[in-house]
Structure formats: C-alpha cells, structure tokens
C-alpha cells in the first residue's frame, strides 16, 4: 500500500461529509484518479450512501393521531389499570445472572403475548426526562419490547449475553490527549453493588455456557488453507483497555531506570523502551510496561515511589461495543463461508475472517492487561 492510500483513508470520512477544505479535497481526488483500490472503496460508499438517502418510509396510518391522543388519555388513568410484568423486588438482572435470565425470558414471553410499545409506555409512565437512557436502567422491571419479527441479529447460540455497563466514570484524561470531555455521563450508573466491585481484574463472565468453556481449536494464522478449522469462540463480555501515564523526576536517571526495570520484571511486565534522549536540558527515558490488570495498580504505586511525580493520568477505553459489533461481523462471515461453493470466494471471505479474528484476539489480549507508560526525567 502506498503512503498516499493510508493518508487518504484517514480523510475519507470527512471527504464523504464534505467537511474537508478545498485543498485537501483536491488532494484526495488527485489520489483517487490514480489509485484503483481507493477509487473502488469510494465508489462503493457513494453508491451505498446514495441508496441510503433514497430509502423511503411509508406514511403513518390515517388514524395515527387519534391513537396517540387515546393513549395520552389513558395514560392519565390510575395505576391499577396498567398491566405489566414486574420482576420480584430485589432481583436485579446484573446481580443474579442465572435467575434473572430465567425471569427475563419469562418477561419476554409475557410481553410478546401481551403486546407492544403501548404496553411498555403505560408501564414506563412517570419516568422523567425525554432522554431515557439514564433513568430507565435503574427501574426494576425488564419489560422488553416484542421480539423483532425478522431475526436480524446473529443467532445467540454460544455467545448469548450482552456486555454490561462500565462501572464508574473515566479517570482524569491524559494531558494533551485527544479525547474530548463528555457532556453527559455516557452510560448509566449501575447499581451500587456492581460499582463497588474492584474494577481491575474483575472479569464478569456473562456467557450462557459455563465459564469454563474453552475456545475451540484456534484457527491457524497462515492463509492459503483449504480445509477450514473451527472458528474461534470469543466470549462476549465486558472489555476495557486501561492505560496509565506517569512522569517522574529522579536525581539519577540510570539508577532510576534500572530500578524501574527491576520492579517491572518482578511484576512480570513486558517492558519496552519508547524513547531516550534529551528534552531541553534534561535527560529523559520513556518505558512502556504491559502488565496483568490485577497487578497494575501495585506496579504503578511502586513506580511512583521512584521519585517526584510531575504528571500523571490515565485513560480507560471500553471496547465492549466495538468488540460486540466486530464479533457479529465475524460470525456473519463465518456463517457465510460455510454456504459458498466457489473456492475463490471462500478464500476471499476467509481472509476477511482472519482479519477480524486478529482484531478480536488483539482486543481480547489487551483487555486482560494494562499499559503503564513511565517517563523518567533527570532533575
């Protein structure tokens, strides 16, 4: 891949949205004129976006307004007229996964039997605020809307359960990092019990199959296979990648570095030198420690002890959603591959599967570990 492609790909989203300046847009177009790969990519997207834009929706039924007003009217009626399924008080899906799944399944069946949004509406009457995301989660009942008629999502045979809410807000941003501050809490704050669990290392297994289920035979990394190995089994669970950043001033750089490495080794961390040199008048060295999540905090404390802390921060990324989305695509492709007969097609699909699998495996691994970046500066 030529360097031009990589850069152009970064600009493409803005290019599609016509948010690029004239000069940059012209540069992109210049590249497209000579590069078939990028040109195809852009052409695909343009056609798809065009089709999206033209998607029509039918008009609402003629009695729609009447129905709305009727439901408004009845929403004012007293509580005993509302029907709905309540979970017994004290049962929270996130505290008792096994039991809750049974009850929730019953709830789903009940709601399918009874109805629809309007039923849910009567039940949810009284929730404050139009953006429901925060409050709803805290309510005990899990009245679910009816199962969608066409099965759109991938069937949940092995990897049933949803990733859960990230406990706790993110820590202070790494100075100078790109991530902008959130305008509102991005997710619901879960009930106390969940939030109080130690986040580091607490792997919350939500898999329907037993937690001991081991991945099926791993697909070999090499390409060009004809017989397909079993696709890997990835558990759908909470995944976070946490990285911390620490800048410490020390009287003697060499001694401090040696000490840091010793400590890191004792913690079983993978140590990587990031940089070494002069920053203005001061000698500096940067080290990256990749360590098991359960040990990260302790390692951080020990590294802090090396000298005077000038700066620190940390960042947590929850990749559960990305993981879930990628996993879905992965399963989709795997399913597809089993239905094609053409060898070339199967191979192309196989490559896509490998790519996705690699990404999933990388995320899987990274989520088990934490990264600590240590900058040592000689005083």
């Amino acid at each position, binding site marked *: 891949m030529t360097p031009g492609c990589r850069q152009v790909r970064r600009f493409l989203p803005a290019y599609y949205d016509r948010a690029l300046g004239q000069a940059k847009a012209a540069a992109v177009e210049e590249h497209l004129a000579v590069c078939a790969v990028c040109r195809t990519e852009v052409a695909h*997207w343009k056609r*798809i976006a065009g089709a999206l834009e033209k998607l029509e929706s039918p008009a609402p039924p003629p009695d*729609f307004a009447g129905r709305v007003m009727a439901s408004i009217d009845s929403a004012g009626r007293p509580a005993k007229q509302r029907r709905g399924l309540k979970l017994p008080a004290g049962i929270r899906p996130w505290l008792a996964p096994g039991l809750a799944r049974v009850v929730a399944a019953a709830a789903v069946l009940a709601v399918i039997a009874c109805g629809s949004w309007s039923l849910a509406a009567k039940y949810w009457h009284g929730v404050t605020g139009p953006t429901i995301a925060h409050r709803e989660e805290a309510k005990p009942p899990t009245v679910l809307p009816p199962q969608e008629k066409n099965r759109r999502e991938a069937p949940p045979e092995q990897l049933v359960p949803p990733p859960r809410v990230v406990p706790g807000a993110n820590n202070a941003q790494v100075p100078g990092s790109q991530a902008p501050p959130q305008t509102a809490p991005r997710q619901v704050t879960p009930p106390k019990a969940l939030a109080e669990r130690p986040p580091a290392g607490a792997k919350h297994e939500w898999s329907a199959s037993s937690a001991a289920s081991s991945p099926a035979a791993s697909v070999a990394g090499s390409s060009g296979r004809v017989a397909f190995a079993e696709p890997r089994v990835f558990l759908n669970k909470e995944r976070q990648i946490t990285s911390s950043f620490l800048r410490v001033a020390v009287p003697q750089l060499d001694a401090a570095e040696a000490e840091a490495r010793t400590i890191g080794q004792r913690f079983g961390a993978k140590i990587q030198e990031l940089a070494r040199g002069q920053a203005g008048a001061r000698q500096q060295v940067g080290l990256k420690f990749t360590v098991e999540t359960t040990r990260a905090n302790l390692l951080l404390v020990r590294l802090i002890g090396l000298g005077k802390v000038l700066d620190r921060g940390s960042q947590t990324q929850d990749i559960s959603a990305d993981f879930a989305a990628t996993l879905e695509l992965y399963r989709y492709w795997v399913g597809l591959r089993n239905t*094609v007969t053409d060898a070339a097609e199967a191979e192309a699909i196989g490559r896509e599967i490998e790519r996705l699998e690699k990404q999933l495996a990388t995320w899987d691994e990274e989520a088990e570990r934490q990264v600590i970046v240590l900058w040592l500066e000689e005083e």
Partner: protein
Amino acid sequence: MSPLANVKELVRRSQTKDQQAFAELVSLYQDKVYSLSYHLTGDATEAQDLAQEVFLRAYLHIGTFRQEADFGTWLHRITVNVWLNSRRKQKGPLVISLDTPIVTEDGEVAREVAAAQPDPLEMTTERELQQLVRRALQELPADFRAVLVLREIEGYNYEEIARLLRCSLGTVKSRLNRARHALKAKVLALAARDGYSLSDR
C-alpha cells in the same frame, strides 16, 4: 401567524395540558417522527408503536422543552433514545469507545486484495442495491444504525447528532466511521450471499 410561531404557541398551550393543541402538534410532526421510527425499526408496525410511544413521552415531558430549541429535533431525540434504549434492554447496553482503531496493520493487506477482485456490486441495479442496503442496515448493531440513519437519511450534521445522542463529537465521528465500514461489509456480504459473484473464474 407564521408556522414557527404557530408551533411555539401550540407547544406553550400543550405545556398547560391542552390536549387539543397537542393533537395539532401530532398532526404536524407525525410524518417526521414516523419516518425516523421506520428507518430505525425497519418495520411498519414497530414504527407505529415507537412513534406512538414517542408522542406519549413528548406529551408527558413537554414541560421540559425549551422554546428556543427545535421541536422536531427534540422529537427525534426522543425517538432515537427510546429506540436505542429498547435495543439495550434486548441485548444489553453498548458503549462505544472513542479511539479504538478499526483494523490492525494486517487489515490493510486484506483490503487491497479484496479490492483487486472484480467489484461485487458492479452488476447490481439501483433497485437491487436499495434492497441490499435496507437489509444490511437492519442487520447492523443498534448504535451503528442510529448514527447512519441520522447522518445519511435525516441529514443531521455531526454537532446535531452529538446533541441528539448525548455524546461527544469525537464519538460521533468515530462511530460513524465504523458504522460506514460495517454497513459496507454487510452490503458486500449480502451481495455475495445472494449470488452476485465475487470473482469471474
């Protein structure tokens, strides 16, 4: 009275629980709400139910509506959040991270190889493509579907989408980027499955 002033007046009256005024608002905005509902749910019946739910909540919470905002956008915000929330109850809450890269380095190679093969969409007509896109959209995860619908169909810009979804601008951009990739992958996968060949051999 100008249309905008008319809406403001109807909202003001609705805030005093004037149901007649609200009924007029429903008539004025039902197409707009229904359209978004339909694109999100993909199904006429569900869209009706969702739209009805949206107006019900709008009525109940109209006291919180600030007059300087746009009423239609406010309704859309309710629509997308109610829908996303219901999806979360089905599959669990989804949180999209900001900076996670979409592909590893090796993914670049796969992209080149795939693109070197004949275009799987080359032979599809516009109508066929529409069907593919419609189906692919329905198969995407809810958060992806939401940003795509808001951006590509409803035409909201990034800032507006960020306000509608109550997330940061960066989140919108990266989510949209990922969503576009996912949609493209699905469309190509569906095209392949339906027998539009990936290769001529």
